[in-house]
């Protein structure tokens, strides 16, 4: 009989948060967060201001201590062994300030040396990451002259310096112009393509929908949803559409539309424009369009208001705000 092979040890999840909680005096910023992010996942961490997103990220990067629970990166407790836990991590926390007396190259060299990189590695990677965030031209300039957007680009560059297995980013596109935001999204996508794990908080739902595989939604320090973007978008329940008609529908026509079973709410905006909140997915959209046409209404445009993720976000936040 062949000898049984020892069971392969499952690799530790890049992020595992267990019962994580944080109080600032009498204010509870984080209740009891349990969240595991598997390797190679890009997770969008969503929630309104004060939801506990930054608190979670700060605990994960050892900037603050949890009041209870545990945050582990690659199986290493951040609180107990911060240097080991953060060794394979790159982080962008808010818009960090840098030392104004240093240039981007010197800043990267400082971070690289603290991480134990050799001079050759630092030189090679600095050149690459500065090119990636479009800062090559300013590589030797003192940072004290930099705008917020430039500092944000540098923050992303230093987070990528050591080719981290896990990238933790708090509002990575904050302070960037639309072109800069698009470039950061491309960087994130290329990192995702390279199999890196990404944990990204953002207010920009479109950005998360475009870049992330999974979404975790937080409000009042509590995890509301954690699922894949695909499933959440599919099963968001209700969606709002704006329909414009050739002529303004009468009150009777609107009342008749409201009786269609999938219609949850109709808002008359005047000038032949109506907002409709309907339940269901693409079939429901087809049904409402059919109902409009069968009632003699000529539709000139029919478009969704916000992405499915945005609608899901708003539904969950409203629900948790007014349970």
């Amino acid at each position, binding site marked *: 009989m062949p000898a049984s092979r020892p069971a392969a040890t499952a690799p530790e999840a890049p992020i595992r948060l267990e019962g994580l909680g944080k109080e600032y005096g009498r204010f509870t910023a984080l209740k009891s967060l349990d969240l595991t992010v598997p390797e190679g996942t890009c997770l969008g961490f969503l929630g309104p201001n004060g939801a506990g997103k930054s*608190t979670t990220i*700060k605990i994960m990067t050892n900037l603050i201590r949890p009041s209870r629970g545990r945050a582990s990166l690659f199986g290493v407790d951040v609180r107990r062994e911060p240097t080991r836990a*953060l060794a394979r991590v790159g982080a962008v926390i808010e818009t960090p300030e840098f*030392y104004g*007396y*240093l240039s981007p190259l010197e800043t990267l060299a400082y971070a690289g040396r*603290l991480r134990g990189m050799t001079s050759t590695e630092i030189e090679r990677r600095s050149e690459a990451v500065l090119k990636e965030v479009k800062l090559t031209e300013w590589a030797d300039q003192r940072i004290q002259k930099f705008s917020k957007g430039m500092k944000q680009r540098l923050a992303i560059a230093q987070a990528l310096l050591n080719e981290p297995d896990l990238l933790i980013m708090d509002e990575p596109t904050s302070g960037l112009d639309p072109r800069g935001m698009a470039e950061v999204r491309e960087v994130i996508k290329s990192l995702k393509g390279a199999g890196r794990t990404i944990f990204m908080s953002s207010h920009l739902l479109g950005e998360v929908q475009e870049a992330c595989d999974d979404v975790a939604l937080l409000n009042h320090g509590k995890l509301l949803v954690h699922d894949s973007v695909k499933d959440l978008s599919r099963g968001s329940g209700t969606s709002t559409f704006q329909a414009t008609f050739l002529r303004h529908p009468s009150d009777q026509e609107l009342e008749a539309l409201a009786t269609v079973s999938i219609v949850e709410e109709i808002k008359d905006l005047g000038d032949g424009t109506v907002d409709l909140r309907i339940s269901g997915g693409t079939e429901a959209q087809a049904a409402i369009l059919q109902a409009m046409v069968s009632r003699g209404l000529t539709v000139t445009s029919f478009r969704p208001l916000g992405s499915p993720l945005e609608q899901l976000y708003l539904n969950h936040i409203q629900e948790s705000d007014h349970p």
Partner: protein
Amino acid sequence: MSTGPLAQVATVTKYEILKYLRGRRILGVLVLVALIVGLILGLPPALGVAYASTPNAFVASFATFAGLLAILSGVLFAADALVSEHEKRTGYFLFPNPVRRETLVLGKIAASLIVSAALISVYFGAAAISALAITGSLSWDVGLSYVYALAYVACVVGIAYLLSASLKSTVASTVLTFFLFTLIFTLVGALVAAAQINPWFVPTSASGIIGDVLGSPTIAPGPGGGFGGGFVPDPATSLLVFAAYAVVGAVLAIVLFRRRELSS
């Protein structure tokens, strides 16, 4: 990729020194040093007074201001070193790196000590060269005075770091460090002396050893001419007092800095 804590301390020290070199503070202190040296060397001939004839007496004039230089060094090169990481938000860049807070504090302390010691060395170097040129000799006491001044610098830096780790603003930390050594300690020394207790444990009293070793009682610089200048502990006690404040200050700074959260 990994690096030992010692290499990390050296890295932090290197970049902190770079900060001081590229800032204007070192230049400011060097201008002050030049001004003091210029006045000490220029005033006697201008007033028709002869220079002291012995190296000890000659360097004693320099020693009078060595305490003030030590305090200024602590204020300018230590008092804001930790608090600024929180206040200026540079901690958001520095702290998520795989480096322990105590490593950061030790690297910063080393940089503060190196820069402060370098400035004191320039000052005593100028004093020694002047003494050699004018009196034609030097004594070991000048060297001892220099060593005491360095020990006093370490004491000021230790306390400055403690305040920097405790307070929330760079201004508060800087101002409090300055007034602690120019006013508050001096006042405590005077009050303790008034209660018939020798203020051997007050650093400004112990700093009198910098001038005393040269044979002239030092007047501690500061408002009121320094009330605590009357009593100076013996050299061993003075050195122990300096060491105690330096070590306790640094250790408490590490403990407080480790516990401090970056939540603003």
